[in-house]
């Protein structure tokens, strides 16, 4: 039942993320899910969620395969680095990951567009990166609280 509740939560997250991306062009709304499962150390969910996010983002995009896979792999690297640097402060960790993911979004947009000889507008690239940073800053605590509600219910049921 709780497994189903968990799966349903993530499916609802993916559904809402796709709809959000419809209205906010260039945003990666699903990466916050990867951040949350990493924090929860929920490796069972990570096993299917990471490929699902990569396939969805690569499928709905128009560039050749590569961006999302690299972006998420870079997140894991950034996550470990941020953990090392910001051992004492959760706030610094939170800021480092958010700003880092925004900067990486801009960098990879530029990098993959250049690699595949696709035209790009630098203003849009930078705008998307800034938007990504603010999105993570806002969505991470909100979705984290929502996740805690589910996790709390699970623990309550287990006890």
């Amino acid at each position, binding site marked *: 039942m709780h497994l189903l509740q968990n799966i349903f939560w993530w499916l609802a997250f993916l*559904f809402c993320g*796709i*709809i959000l*991306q*419809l209205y906010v*062009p*260039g*945003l*990666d709304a699903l990466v916050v899910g990867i951040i949350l499962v990493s924090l929860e150390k929920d490796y069972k969910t990570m096993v299917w969620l990471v490929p699902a996010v*990569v*396939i*969805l*983002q*690569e*499928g*709905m*995009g*128009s*560039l*050749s*395969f*590569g*961006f*999302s*896979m*690299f*972006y998420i*792999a870079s997140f*894991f*690297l950034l996550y*470990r*680095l941020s*953990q*090392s*640097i910001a*051992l004492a402060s959760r706030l610094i960790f939170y800021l480092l990951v958010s700003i880092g993911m925004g900067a990486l*979004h801009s960098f*990879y*947009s530029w990098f*993959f*567009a250049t690699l595949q*000889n*696709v*035209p*790009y*507008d630098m203003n*849009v690239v930078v705008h*998307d990166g800034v938007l*990504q940073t603010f999105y993570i800053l806002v969505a991470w605590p909100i979705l984290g609280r929502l996740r805690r509600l589910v996790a709390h219910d699970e623990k309550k049921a287990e006890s």
Partner: protein
Amino acid sequence: MRDTLFLFLYGEAPSWSCRGASPVFAGPLCKPLQSLFLSICGKRDAFVNFRHALITAGLLLVLFLALYTLNRTTGMLDRVTTNIGLEVTGIVLNPVRQIEATVADIWDSYIDLVHVREENVALQKRVQVLEAQVLAQSEDMAELRRLRELLKMPLDVSWTPLGARILAGRIGPNSQLESFTINRGYTTGAAPGTPIVTNQGLLGKVLRAAPHTATAILLTHPTSRIAIFTQKTRTPGILTGLGPNRPMEVRYMDKATKAEPGELLVTSGLDGKYPKGIPVARILTMRPSSSSEFMTILAEPLADMRHTEEVLLLEPTGIVRPPEPASPAPEFVGPPLPDFLKPRDDREDGAGSR
């Protein structure tokens, strides 16, 4: 492993010594590194984590390069992600768009009744004008049919129009500026390469397709190459995109052309990718090139690329277009043939007349 990596990076063996939690490294290159890490967090664990992260990054990079190369050569990963990711996106977006349209309909029908009466009067007048126009058009159409019959001009049966709805513009981080998603896929008439038009003219073509959803690119994309000619003077050329928010360029148009700014460019159909006669762009500026035998022409696309909701896909029917009516062989103009090259009858006639 740790020592090996250190040796590889710095060219000498490290001398690890734990005084409390602080590392002490040997060698001149290690001093700045040590001070950097000590200043950041002051713990040896940080360097170990950093080293692990570095190795992970290296492995991920190798994995990525392998997958990227595999995909560039086979296109396998693109096919998989398109068939699954794009299809799922279409499944999510289609109901959202339908709900959006339903809500808009309810709003228009039941709530927004304030100006209905005035709008009704205006619409009735508009209907009258349109009816008059339809009558006039029907007369023109009848005349066109008669003239076509008279000239035996074949109608182009090679393409079938299919309606489609734009589901989204640029969606997701992996999309480029000049792309949009439509609610038709390769099983419903939107195979890659299918031309997309609006009532204003050519809009683009299908780039990638899932079974019921497809991603398309606009004709202003730099990879676009469209065989066109000018509508009045019929001078051929190749129209190419220069990127977002920029005019298009016409290449290989003869300097002798009599085209003028403002003239329409229509598809010539010579490339086999687009049907003949679809308006594409309007000439903005033109001047003879100083470095080649062609004109330098800039043109603006006709289709509104920002406010389009419905489009038409032109699906090839597979029916070969009937050939143009045969014309008589051109009359030979030139010096008279020598006697030995003339047909025998002509020679005999010539001798008889002498």
